[in-house]
């Protein structure tokens, strides 16, 4: 497998190109650049045939249509073989009645896991932690979430994160704590005293010159 680091050393960084990879998956050989033009949620799980991971795969699969509506593709990863992944996704379909619609990377040699910093030696040297990397349609890494082995992720929060990033890109705004689609957004603070004066008169919902919200 070929990997490129864009000059990064160690962990990937927000706002920089996501590390390129080519990997074997349950849907064949896939490269990061195959996802260009779509958002991508690249996520890792500790191991196939484990209970918390199974609940997450069921949840990601159930949520896949909502991600699709937002032009988001999903791609899983663990340090297991393709055959293990195939057996596990078939087992999930048999036991939980849901087809896993996304590819799962078989990262037996840990190339992609190492590139993205998915292995936390303090937790496990042989398994990936529960990492989520949100990569935008231009291949830029926009968000990272790390959860420990013992805690399953919240799919609604990941969906909310996508909605917030897309809101920011579309409207040039930020989103406040616990924001959900339909709620008011934060207008970037003015950068000059003159702009601050103007902001106070602009008719937004303004607490002070640096704190204004508006509906979108």
């Amino acid at each position, binding site marked *: 497998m070929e990997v490129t680091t864009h000059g990064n050393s160690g962990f990937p960084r927000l706002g920089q190109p996501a590390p390129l990879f080519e990997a074997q998956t349950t*849907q*064949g*050989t*896939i*490269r990061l*650049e*195959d*996802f260009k*033009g*779509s958002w991508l949620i690249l996520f890792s799980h500790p191991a196939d045939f484990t209970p918390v991971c199974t609940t997450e795969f069921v949840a990601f699969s159930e949520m896949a249509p909502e991600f699709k509506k937002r032009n988001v*593709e999903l791609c899983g990863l663990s340090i297991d073989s393709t055959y293990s992944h195939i057996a596990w996704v078939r087992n999930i379909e048999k036991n939980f009645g849901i087809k896993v619609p996304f590819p799962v990377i078989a990262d037996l040699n840990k190339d992609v896991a190492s590139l993205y910093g998915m292995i936390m030696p303090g937790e496990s040297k042989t398994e990936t932690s529960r990492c989520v990397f949100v990569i935008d349609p231009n291949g830029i890494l926009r968000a990272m979430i790390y959860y420990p082995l013992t805690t399953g992720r919240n799919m609604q929060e990941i969906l909310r994160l996508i909605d917030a990033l897309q809101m920011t890109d579309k409207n040039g705004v930020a989103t406040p704590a616990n924001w959900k689609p339909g709620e008011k957004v934060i207008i970037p603070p003015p950068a000059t005293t003159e702009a601050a004066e103007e902001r106070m008169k602009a008719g937004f919902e303004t607490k002070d010159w640096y704190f204004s919200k508006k509906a979108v």
Partner: protein
Amino acid sequence: MPCVDSSGELTPTAGKILTAMTTAMPLSEVSRKTGLALYQVRSAARELVEAGLVEETDGIYIVADAGHAALAKMPGKN
């Protein structure tokens, strides 16, 4: 996206993509025509080109002679 199965025949997905590519078109159009995600089409197209089943010129893809022959061998095509 494996395009050929263990018996050397086209997979259903590869057949669908090759059928779409009997008319020259970009991969975005193949994705729209087949209903497959664009990443799946890109992955498969790379493999189909490497296998000599498809030809690519300036981002436009069309089935090669070997691809037509493979399509003709698919069950239900005769």
